């Protein structure tokens, strides 16, 4: 979901820690190293990585193209291939029949069937185009805040994993407890009450 869309879903994060070393170079390196790889024509059925916000299908992080004023803007891209089970079933049947005729045997071993299935799945995987899913994010580095434009559990989990791998920083999703602990100003007395808090009965 694009950050410029008229209606968006948003998950808020707090960034735990700071980049060591030159900021823009380190982030640039993290983005380039973890750019989403192309998997079309490959055996791989899923790829996750960063892409540029302006050109999500042709990742390009040259210069400071991901910097907008004090914000860093880029996107998470998850490419997935979906191979229909019935297509696998059909091609397996054809391939097994061919093998039986070729070897003039009445049956195939379990291992042979497994190898045929792998071969068929790989062949289909190379032919099927991947479907890209793109989720934008805005990173306010100075304030350590991130707005991630998806509330999908899977997309949030991919983001958290890729972020720490790319920049060595943990992301903390802001839900009631974490928002209270991290972003709110609480006295020692309030913190103590929070630790023993029970639901209110209205």
């Amino acid at each position, binding site marked *: 979901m694009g*950050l410029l869309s008229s209606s968006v879903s948003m*998950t808020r994060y707090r960034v735990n820690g700071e980049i060591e070393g030159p900021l823009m170079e380190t982030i640039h390196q993290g983005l380039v190293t973890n750019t989403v790889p192309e998997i079309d024509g490959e055996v791989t059925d899923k790829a996750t990585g960063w892409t540029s916000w302006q050109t999500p299908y042709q990742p390009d992080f040259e210069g400071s193209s991901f910097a907008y004023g004090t914000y860093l803007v880029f996107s998470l891209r998850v490419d997935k291939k979906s191979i229909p089970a019935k297509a696998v079933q059909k091609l397996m049947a054809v391939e097994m029949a061919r093998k039986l005729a070729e070897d003039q045997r009445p049956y195939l071993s379990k291992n042979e069937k497994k190898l045929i299935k792998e071969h068929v799945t790989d062949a289909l995987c190379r032919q099927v185009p991947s479907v890209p899913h793109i989720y934008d994010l805005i990173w306010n580095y100075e304030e350590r805040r991130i707005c991630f434009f998806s509330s999908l559990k899977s997309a949030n989990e991919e983001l958290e994993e890729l972020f720490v791998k790319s920049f060595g920083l943990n992301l903390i999703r802001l839900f009631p407890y974490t928002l209270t602990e991290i972003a709110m100003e609480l006295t020692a007395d309030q913190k103590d009450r929070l630790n023993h808090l029970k639901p209110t009965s*209205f």
Partner: protein
Amino acid sequence: MLDVAVAYNRYKFLGHEFLTWLWFMMDTQPEVLGGLYKDEITPYMGNRIVLEAASGDIRETVTIKGDEADMQEGRVALKKGALVTELNVIIESGGQQWQFTIKGESLNISSLSTPEIGPTSSAEDREGAVLEKAYFYEKLSSYFDSLFQDFLNQRLAADWETQRVAAMQNWIRK
């Protein structure tokens, strides 16, 4: 700090209490909510509210939606022990409007519309649009944090039960 998954479940109720308090405040003291931020902001109920009552494994959900929806059914649900789990909110500031739905347990925001932005046809326009949008998202986030901080100050005060809960109970039974 607690383990994240444990903390998420342990403090879900805090998000639901927050949304229930927010409805109460928007209905009874909107001027207080409007004065919590550096800019003047008016928050009011949007077009959707979801309430949930849980008793053991049984959950009862009431959803009220529509621009002219009667919130009476929501009050009835509150009387039966339900809390607000999702709330659509409109905020206005400086002639600009934000509308969004917030979920209590995760504080995730959905269906968020911000004030209109300028054209996005050229690269220069898009840069301006990103900065404008980022400002709108940040303003909403900051205001939201102010609301949550005010709620926590009341929720974690010694007189929460005697003062605030009593006032909310009166409002529920009104």
